[in-house]
Structure formats: structure tokens, C-alpha cells
């Protein structure tokens, strides 16, 4: 410490002229308003800007010159031996010399600012530019923090350029390797993990910190281990810096690899999970261990356990990011082509092969489609981008038809009615308009308009009817062909909810003080005489309801509590016998198709939080299929 202090004092004494010149230059800058042609500019602002400029420039120049010469020049001129011939440790020489360079740079900035500050204080500093730059904003603090880094960088450069030994090759190789590894890792992370700007800033700060530590250690090693030997010093500098930066970057790469090399079983939980209509694949995504907001998505082949990492773009909570064809043979989804916010690409995958790989379609969309709908045979796709609906041929990416809509409150909701017609639901100011886009003629035909009651809508499988659930607890059923209201389902003192099933019937639920009751109606909202009633006790209600087959429904029982809906378990509703069976414990969670209009099948998929399993609804037998995670759906149940 005594040695470092002695060297520091000695170095500062050598630079006393600089310390004297700084306030003088600051004084000179005060005269900026007197320059010709500056009469129109605000005098105080111009003065302060000049002072600030002089302070920053002077300190930067000081850091640059001293950093590059305070040790490098002595080493090159063999004057460093003077210090090493004294009872001074290498650390003391390093700390004293570089510390003096940093102090000189700081002092140059502060001393150059001093006259301006004094003038500002005398003039009542409140609104002055200089005061603002110093006090509420971190400009000066950032600059003062950057000066030591500038000293270290220029010291590094000064040493390697003066020495020009063969270790320069290591410097270049190390720099290229480090930058390449960092860049590749960062781009992979950005590609797969969708780093938000805050995380990018944190990574940049970590990189800067690592570089600073590397430079600090390397400069110390250069002096301490290299002593008066320039080549050995260069070697120590290069090895230390390359070692630290490469180690840091490799650690970053290793962490990134760990984050990225994950499967469905590594997710914290499954948030989106849906089974393809053929029950062969599960599309899923969920938060994963890694940076904040990191989520990963997969297509999991149920039979083989093979998972395919995808980048389903995040839709809203209501929109599942993957569209399956009704026959379950095809899936389409949209991804960003590169990092987030890059141009989108629509991917297509044939699901009838376990070894299938996604294929990029030639579909060109300017923005990421918010909704996708695939035609029944999987040959066409409708993409909703903002207020525009476009229909493409999947095979060649050809645009078949497109239409833009104005004054929409929500995204258009497209539903294929066969291969050549697209029915589009448009929400406008509490009014729902239904229009059909005739794909071959590209003509849009208005079909119906009816009031939007403001809550969830449920389309019938043939898109000819719609049930609109209102927040008040009533349901209105409309005929989409003409907009006629077919039924109004409500009950005094109770909430009524309804949604269409895969066979076109309506499942209506009445939730009242006595509990919940579920009955089946026909597609027009009329009571079916032979429909059994299924009841749940007070505090419970049916959540999502799926049709397993013609005689069975699969329903989620939700418990209403103060904390919100809690899933109680899945029930099997036997329509023929009017019985309700519990399929499994509360921890069992079902993976259903993305649309309630797709039958869940006779052996639907479930997860118990650790395993993916299939339950045969006939026999109740369970078949373990592979590892899984707890599934907490982000969808709100339509019921």
C-alpha cells in the first residue's frame, strides 16, 4: 500500500501541469458566448455546453493518452526497470501508475467543470444545463465510470501495439473467438429465448463487466508477471485477458446451451397444451428455466416421445398458437424468421409421420399473424394480420384472397366452411358482423349482423350458429345466415352459460345457489327431451366441456373460491345413462384439442404432473406415455 501510494504520488506530481491546465481550459470555455455568431443562442446554455464539452473531451483525451503511455511507454523505453529496481511490488507499480492515470482523467473532468459550476451556483443553478447534466441525470456519473475502462482499454492497446510480439496473434484470435462465441450464443438465445430489451441490456452490462474485469486482471498480470520483459508482459496480458474473456463467454455459452437444450419435460409447467385431432401430437409450450419470460414450445409425438422444438409465436391468452386441420393431418403455425420482431414465416407440418419435420411455406406476411385457421383438408390457411384476413394456398404460398376490415374492436375470427368459403366474425362496437369470403371469386358477402353481448362466443361446428355468453349470465343463440336470434337462455337468480359441442348440440349450464346443472340443447337452443341432467353441488361449476364421442362428455369441474377458479378434476358424463363419473384425482389434468368442437376421443390424454398418460374411457385403464409437467392452461374456459 505504501509503495502504491508512493508511485501514485510520484505519477500525479509528474502530471501536475495537466491538473493546473484543466480549470484554465474550463475558464476558457466560459467565454463561448462571446464567440461571433452565437448571439442568438442562449448564453448560459452555450456556456454550459462548452464547459461540458471541454470537461468530457479533456478527461477522455487524458484517459486515452495516459492509459496508453503510463506503463506502455515506460516498458518500451525500458524505464519500467527503474521501479522494479526498487522495493516496490509489481502490484504497487501497477496500481500506482494506472490509478494515477484514472485520477488524472477524473480530476481533469472535475477541474474543467469547476469554473462553470461556480458560475452556475452564483447565478442560481436550478435550470442550467450544467446543473441538469450533473445532478438529475447520470451522464457525468456514466462518463466518470467509463474513464477507468478507457484507461484500461488504451493501456491494453498501448502495450500490445508497442510490443508487437507473436502474442498479438493470440489477441486477435482470442478477440475473434470470444466475439464469435458471444455473438453466436447471443443470437441463439435471441432466436430461441426471445430476450427482451431489459435482458439484452443486462447481458450487455455483464459483457462490459466481464471485459472490465478481464482488462483489469490482464493489465495487473502484465505488470506483475511481465515486469520489465515486454514479451512476457504481453504474454501475461494476452493470456489473462483471453482466459478471462473466453472463460466468461464459454460459461455464458454453457449456460445458454443448458437453457436451450431442453425438452417438454424440462419446462416449469405447460401453459399451452393441446392435442391434435388425430391424438398423435401434442403442441405445448410453457415457461422454462432460464432468463425471465423465457418460454419454450414443442410438438411432441405421443407415440414415440419425440419432441420437436418450435417457436410458436405467442398469441393472446385466447388464441392457441397452432392451427390443426380438422382431420388432424396437418398443423400450421407462425414464427419469427429470426429474432423477435423480424419478418414472420408460416410453417407447415404433416402430422401423419412421427419423423415429420416442419417446412417453411412461401407465405409472405408483413407482420406476425395473430390468428391462423386451416381448411378442413389442410390445403389452405387463413391468416389474420391486424385487420386484414388473407387466404393462402399452403403448397405454394399463393395468395388466394385477402380483405381488410376497418373499425374493428377485435381481431377478425376466420372459420373455414369447406375449402372455398371462409366465414369471418367481425366485432364492431357491440355489434358482431358475419361475412363470408368466397375464395375463388375473392368476393366478400355480408351475412348477418347481431348485437355482441360482450363475452365469450361459441360457434357451431358448421359455423351456422353462434351462442354468445353475456357477462350478466345470459346466452343468446343466433342464426348466422340471417342474424335472427334463435333463443335466449337465462334464468332468474342464476348464471347461464352455453357452448357448442362437436356434434352441433349446445351444452347449457345453469349455475345458481343450489349448484350447477348441465343439460344438452339442440343447435337452436331448444331443449332436447331425452337429455339427462348433470348436477354439481353449490360452489362448483362445469368448466371446459368436450365431447368424447356421441354418448360421452368430458367436463372439467371447477371450484369457485375467493382466489378464483380452482380445478377440481375431470368428470365423465355418460349421456345414455345420465351418470357422472370422476376420471381421476384433482391433480390429473386433461390435454384436450384446441377447439371444443373437436372430439376429445375415447382415450384422451392427461398429465398427472410427472407423466403423460392416456385414459381409456371405456375401461378406465391408464397407459403411461412419457414424462410430463403440470399443466396450468392459460385459457379461460369457454363455460
Amino acid at each position, binding site marked *: 500500500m*505504501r509503495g502504491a501510494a508512493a508511485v501514485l504520488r510520484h505519477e500525479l506530481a509528474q502530471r501536475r501541469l495537466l491538473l493546473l491546465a484543466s480549470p484554465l481550459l474550463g475558464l476558457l470555455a466560459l467565454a463561448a458566448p462571446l464567440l461571433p455568431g452565437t448571439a442568438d443562442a442562449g448564453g448560459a446554455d452555450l456556456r454550459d455546453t462548452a464547459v461540458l464539452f471541454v470537461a468530457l473531451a479533456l478527461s477522455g483525451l487524458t484517459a486515452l493518452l495516459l492509459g496508453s503511455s503510463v506503463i506502455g511507454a515506460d516498458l518500451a523505453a*525500458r524505464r519500467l526497470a527503474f521501479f522494479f529496481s526498487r*522495493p516496490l511490488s509489481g502490484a504497487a507499480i501497477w496500481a500506482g501508475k494506472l490509478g494515477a492515470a484514472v485520477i488524472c482523467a477524473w480530476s481533469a473532468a472535475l477541474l474543467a467543470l469547476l469554473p462553470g459550476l461556480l458560475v452556475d451556483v452564483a447565478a442560481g443553478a436550478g435550470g442550467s444545463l450544467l446543473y441538469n447534466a450533473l445532478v438529475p441525470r447520470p451522464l457525468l456519473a456514466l462518463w466518470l465510470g467509463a474513464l477507468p475502462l478507457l484507461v484500461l482499454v488504451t493501456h491494453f492497446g498501448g502495450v500490445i501495439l508497442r510490443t508487437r510480439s507473436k502474442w498479438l496473434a493470440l489477441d486477435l484470435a482470442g478477440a475473434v473467438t470470444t466475439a464469435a462465441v458471444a455473438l453466436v450464443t447471443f443470437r441463439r438465445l435471441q432466436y430461441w429465448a426471445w430476450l427482451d430489451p431489459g435482458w439484452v441490456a443486462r447481458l450487455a452490462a455483464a459483457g462490459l463487466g466481464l471485459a472490465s474485469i478481464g482488462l483489469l486482471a490482464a493489465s495487473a498480470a502484465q505488470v506483475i508477471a511481465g515486469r520489465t520483459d515486454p514479451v512476457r508482459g504481453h504474454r501475461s496480458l494476452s493470456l489473462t485477458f483471453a482466459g478471462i474473456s473466453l472463460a466468461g463467454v464459454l460459461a455464458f455459452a454453457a449456460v445458454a446451451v443448458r437453457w436451450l437444450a431442453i425438452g417438454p419435460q424440462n419446462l416449469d409447467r405447460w401453459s399451452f397444451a393441446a392435442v391434435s385431432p388425430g391424438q398423435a401430437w401434442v403442441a405445448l409450450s410453457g415457461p422454462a428455466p432460464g432468463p425471465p419470460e423465457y418460454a419454450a414450445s414443442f410438438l411432441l409425438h405421443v407415440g414415440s416421445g419425440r419432441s420437436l422444438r418450435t417457436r410458436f409465436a405467442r398469441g393472446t391468452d385466447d388464441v392457441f398458437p397452432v392451427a390443426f386441420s380438422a382431420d388432424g393431418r396437418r398443423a400450421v403455425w407462425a414464427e419469427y424468421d429470426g429474432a423477435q420482431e423480424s419478418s414472420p414465416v408460416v410453417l407447415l407440418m404433416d402430422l401423419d409421420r412421427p419423423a415429420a419435420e416442419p417446412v417453411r411455406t412461401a407465405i409472405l406476411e408483413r407482420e406476425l399473424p395473430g390468428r391462423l385457421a386451416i381448411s378442413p383438408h389442410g390445403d389452405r390457411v387463413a391468416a389474420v394480420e391486424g385487420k386484414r384476413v388473407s387466404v393462402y394456398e399452403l403448397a405454394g404460398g399463393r395468395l388466394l384472397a385477402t380483405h381488410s376490415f376497418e373499425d374493428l374492436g377485435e381481431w377478425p375470427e376466420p372459420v373455414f366452411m369447406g375449402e372455398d368459403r371462409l366465414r369471418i366474425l367481425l366485432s364492431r362496437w357491440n355489434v358482431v358482423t358475419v361475412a363470408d369470403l368466397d375464395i375463388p371469386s375473392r368476393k366478400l358477402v355480408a351475412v348477418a349482423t347481431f348485437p355482441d353481448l360482450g363475452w365469450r362466443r361459441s360457434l357451431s361446428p358448421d359455423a351456422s350458429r353462434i351462442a354468445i355468453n353475456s357477462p350478466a349470465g345470459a346466452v343468446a343463440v343466433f342464426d348466422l345466415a340471417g342474424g335472427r336470434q334463435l333463443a335466449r337462455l337465462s334464468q332468474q337468480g342464476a348464471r347461464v352459460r352455453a357452448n357448442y359441442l362437436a356434434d352441433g348440440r349446445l351444452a347449457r349450464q345453469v349455475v345458481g345457489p343450489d349448484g350447477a346443472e348441465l343439460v344438452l340443447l339442440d343447435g337452436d337452443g331448444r331443449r332436447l327431451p331425452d337429455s339427462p341432467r348433470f348436477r354439481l353441488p353449490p360452489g362448483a361449476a362445469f368448466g371446459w366441456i368436450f365431447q368424447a364421442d356421441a354418448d360421452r362428455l368430458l367436463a372439467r369441474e371447477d371450484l369457485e373460491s375467493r382466489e378464483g377458479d380452482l380445478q377440481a378434476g375431470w368428470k365423465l358424463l355418460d349421456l345414455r345413462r345420465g351418470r357422472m363419473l370422476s376420471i381421476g384425482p384433482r391433480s390429473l389434468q386433461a390435454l384436450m384439442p384446441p377447439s371444443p368442437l373437436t372430439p376429445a376421443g375415447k382415450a384422451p390424454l392427461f398429465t398427472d404432473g410427472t407423466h403423460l398418460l392416456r385414459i381409456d374411457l371405456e375401461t378406465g385403464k391408464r397407459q403411461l406415455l412419457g414424462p410430463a409437467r403440470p399443466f396450468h392452461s392459460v385459457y379461460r374456459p369457454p363455460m
Partner: protein
Amino acid sequence: MSLTAVSVSTIAGSISPKVPAAAFTNAHAGAAAASPGAAARIAAWPLAAEAITVRYGRRNAVDGVSLSLPEGAVYALLGRNGAGKSSLVRCLLGQQRATAGRALLFGRDAWRHRATLMAQVGVVPEQPDAPPGVTARQLARLCRPLYPCWDGSGFEARLRRFDVPADRPFGRLSKGQQGHVALALALAPHPRLLILDDPTLGLDAVARRAFFEELIGDLADRGTTVLLTTHDLAAVERIADRAGILAGGRLLLDEEIERLKQRFRHIWLPSPTPGADAALDALSPRGRVRRNWRVETLVENFDEERFQAFQASPSGAGAEASPLTLEEIFVALTGEGSRQLAPGAEGDPR
């Protein structure tokens, strides 16, 4: 502590075969190496080099050099430019790490304990290395707190004796004055060991004389151990009691100067007879050269009795033996001209 093999150059016009290294054993070390206790004692001497090798790329600048200096010794390390003196000195000062071997100062590894050891060592470098913008007084201000003992008045007195302005920046002093400041800085902390790396290089005769006068005075006062590398062989003869000669990075010779001078002789044979060569061979000459009718022979291990016997023989009639100066011995061992002749060959360098 003995050398295993040494390549030897000879006087101009003469050449000799390689001489066994045992002939140049460091006497201090040789005496002490007899027992483990003595070896430990040597290691604790002010300076000891143990088989130091310094390699730059594929070239050995210093090649397995061992030497040691007891307390109070004044050792002159001689060698031509590029012989490896400065590299060796840097290793001894702990400024440069030897490729192999180690340097000990006061029994401690010079590389590992440099900072501590430098408190007992004064250094005068080959090239003045103090910061050019700093005055001698400011340099003293820097150094004073670093040493346990700092003779400030002695420092000032030396500057006055050398007529060096204490407040003039070091870079504006003459080369001689810079050397004097360096010596004053080296002597001020009363070092136990003084290492002078060609300190009078580039100094004029007056400055050189003043430098050595000051040094001799200090040696007389305090008995400091000194390692001196220099090309000023006349000065070495005045102050050093022992010398080593480096050539091609190897220590050719390490011996007391008086003994060295006794060992080397020129033998002049004015009119050689046909059997003179064979008779001269009996004196173990390092090499010989024929100048007109006269034969000039350098004998390395001169034996007075054998020489008298040679003189008394018919072949040695009129032969004379004369001593060599240190410079002549140095030239004989490291001179360039001798290398042009094949070992054992005779020649006429006229």
C-alpha cells in the same frame, strides 16, 4: 557449482581446443560445494546464480551460468556486446524470469522475493531509466519512503560532488550526470549488494573516473558486495577482486583477477628450432602464432618450473615469458580474430 563444458576462444592468430570446464570452476563455490552445509552457506551469500538459462526463441542468451558472490566481494562480469550480461543481470535482479535455473539474493529467490530483496540492493542500470520529467530530488522523494534506511544527506552530498543540479529534470541532464544520479540513488539506501550493469557506458573519461572514485569510496567505507558488468577493463582491475567472462551466454571463466593474471603468459621464442613446437607443446599452450621468424605462444596455465626447464632446453633458448593485462586475457578468450582459425591450427595473421 562447476561448469561442465566451456567453449574457449583464443588470442588473435592462435587457437586452442576446447578446455575442460573444470579449469574455470568458481573458486568460492568450488570450495564450498564440498559439503551440504557449505552449499547452504553459498546459497545465503548476497548473490548466487544457479545454472541460469535465458532463452529468446531458439537462441540461448544465457546458457546455464552459475556463479556466487560472498559478502564483500567485488565481481566483474565481462563479456562482449550480446554476451548475455544484461539478461543475466535482469535475472539476478528478479526483473526477468530465467528460462531455467534460479537467482538467489541473500539466499532468497530473486524472482519471487524481488520487492523485499530490492530494499538491500542498489542498482545502476546500463541505460539511465529514471522518468525524464522528474528531478533528482523528486526521485529521492519517491525512493525515500521505500527503504528502511535512506541517507538523504549522503544523496545530496554526492549530487554536489558530482556537480549535478538536483532540481533539473532527469531527461535534461547529461549522460554522465544521469549516471551519477543513478549511482547516488543506488548508494543512498546503504545497500548490502550493488549491481552495476555497464554503468559507465557512454560516459566520458572524467565522468567515468568520478563514477569509479565514488564507488571505490563507498566500497572502502562499507564493504558492499558488488557485481559489475563493464567494458572498462582498466577500471575493473582497480576495483574488482574477481572476474567472470561471458561469451555466447556461457561463463568461460570465473576466477580471482590476480590468479588469472598469474595463470596467463605470453611466451616469445625469437628463433625457433625444428623441435621447438614439440617442446612448446609440453607447456600446454592455448594457441600459437608465427610472426616472421618468431613464435608467439599463449600459455593458459603457466608453470614457472616447466618454463625454466624449457628455457634450459636447446629448443627454448632465448624464450621469454610476459604477463597479460586483464584486457589481453579478455581479448584472448573472446577475440573475434581467433575464431577464424580452426582449432589447433597455426597461422600468420599478418
